[in-house]
């Protein structure tokens, strides 16, 4: 196995031994479970409520895990000085960044799988249905989490954990409204502002590309071409973020 894989596996081990992660996953499962109670007070909308709340819980708690663990991936290593004994080993700083990233992605994959299993189990117990189309939404939620992780990792290479969290959270919000930024010229009477928002639109991740929750819940078709496009966009965006993170970390003095 490559050194990146070893660092990734150790990062995975680090996160799964963190009690905070279990609390978050447990809370997410409780939220998914509570959708069953809410569905009881929604006449004729029971299944929709379970699906809506279940997918939203996976997205929200996945994002919380991605951001809260992602921002500490590099900064914690430097604060605790564990990086002093790791980097003199035959690993490059780029190996370190990539290993940390893929390790957290592995953790997220396991957690999303657990939450998905809980979600499908609830749906099956409630209404004896199994809808594979929901997996399309969960697949894209996972890609959104992977982008958030890369953003958190990038920020943590040059700033504190708190500021990384704030910046990642800010981009998460902006990323979900980026389509509005593109059409800003229709709501303001200015020549400068729309140009600025156009630039921001192309810089921030367009997280709307990864949000098909309402479409799958309402039974609208989500073509595989959309999944393919969003995957390609996500992979490219993540690659750029990781290159930036590696470039910054390769120049950083680890005092």
């Amino acid at each position: 196995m490559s050194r990146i894989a070893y660092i990734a596996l150790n990062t995975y081990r680090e996160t799964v031994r963190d009690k905070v992660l279990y609390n978050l996953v447990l809370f997410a499962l409780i939220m998914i479970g509570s959708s069953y109670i809410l569905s009881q007070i929604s006449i004729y909308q029971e299944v929709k409520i379970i699906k809506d709340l279940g997918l939203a819980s996976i997205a929200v708690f996945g994002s919380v895990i991605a951001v809260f663990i992602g921002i500490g991936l590099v900064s914690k290593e430097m604060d605790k000085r564990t990086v002093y004994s790791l980097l003199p080993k035959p690993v490059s700083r780029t190996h370190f960044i990539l290993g940390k990233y893929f390790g957290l992605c592995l953790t997220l994959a396991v957690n999303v799988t657990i939450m998905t299993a809980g979600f499908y189990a609830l749906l099956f117990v409630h209404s004896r249905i199994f809808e594979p189309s929901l997996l399309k939404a969960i697949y894209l939620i996972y890609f959104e989490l992977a982008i958030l992780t890369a953003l958190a990792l990038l920020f943590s290479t040059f700033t504190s954990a708190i500021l990384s969290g704030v910046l990642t959270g800010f981009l998460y919000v902006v990323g979900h409204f980026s389509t509005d930024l593109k059409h800003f010229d229709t709501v303001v009477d200015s020549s400068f502002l729309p140009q600025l928002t156009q630039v921001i639109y192309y810089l921030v991740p367009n997280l709307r590309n990864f949000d098909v929750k309402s479409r799958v819940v309402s039974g609208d078709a989500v073509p595989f071409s959309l999944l393919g496009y969003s995957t390609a966009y996500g992979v490219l965006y993540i690659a750029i973020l990781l290159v930036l993170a590696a470039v910054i970390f390769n120049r950083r003095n680890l005092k």
Partner: protein
Amino acid sequence: MPHVEIDGLTKDYAAGSFALKTKRVLDHLTLTIDEGEIFGLIGPNGAGKTTTLKLLMGLIFPTEGSAKILDKPVGDLSVKAEIGFLPEQPYFYDYLTGRELLDYFGQLFGMSREARRQRIEELLRRVDLVEAGDVQLRKYSKGMTQRLGVAQAILNRPRIAFLDEPMSGLDPMGRRDMTTLIRDLHRDGCTVLFCSHILPDVEALCSRVAILNQGKKVKEGKLADILDLSLTIEVVLANVSGPLEQSLAGIAKNLQRLGERMKVELEDQGALQGVLGLVQQNGASLVSVHSVKQTLEDYFVREVARPGAEQS
């Protein structure tokens, strides 16, 4: 063949409000460490010892100058495979056990599963952590962490070991074991560069030392040469009159009254000849003459305290 070549290594850090000023923490350090040496880097806090090691490990980057390890630039992955590093006050992943940490680092060195298993057990026995091997590191004491730190630094049987304060946090038994371990490393052909505040340990182990102060090299050389240079002659006299005392003050490095007697510290044989002449002329009595070989600690304190101590 030199194992470590440091050429004019300099490090400045941003300092002051808005980082507008710079503070020089290492100033044009030039050193060569040969194969098989145990080299000691000593100096007070803030002298630049840890900065030097961090530069050699590629953890920080030099403002000026360069360094080579095994004739390759610092940071080269093939070099990293041949070196070991113990950081000052090491801190490891506290969610891992001692065995897991060594296994993880062994993986990074590309060691096979069987090679890792054998080497880890051998090292845990060597640093007396066999029973604590399956305990999470968050439960380790400072001394245990230090011993594990040494184990991870020599996991790959390094050709060069860089040890930053290896005796720190160890009890007297631990220090003795560490001294033996460093000697064993040397016997096995490993070059050792270590920083320490505990000068008797440096004196006991090192073939050569460099003294750093305020980022500058104050002295470098073989321990025997440095300490021979600092030989002091101690003369004890009786019946020393006032005029004789005044004359002695002009020759002696230090005068000290011991009741009826006087202890006179001299720098060299020439000064001794002068004192003996004065004793004869003034009717004083010679009680004893002997040479005192200064310890590294004496030398270090004197050199570091000397105003404007500069590179020599």
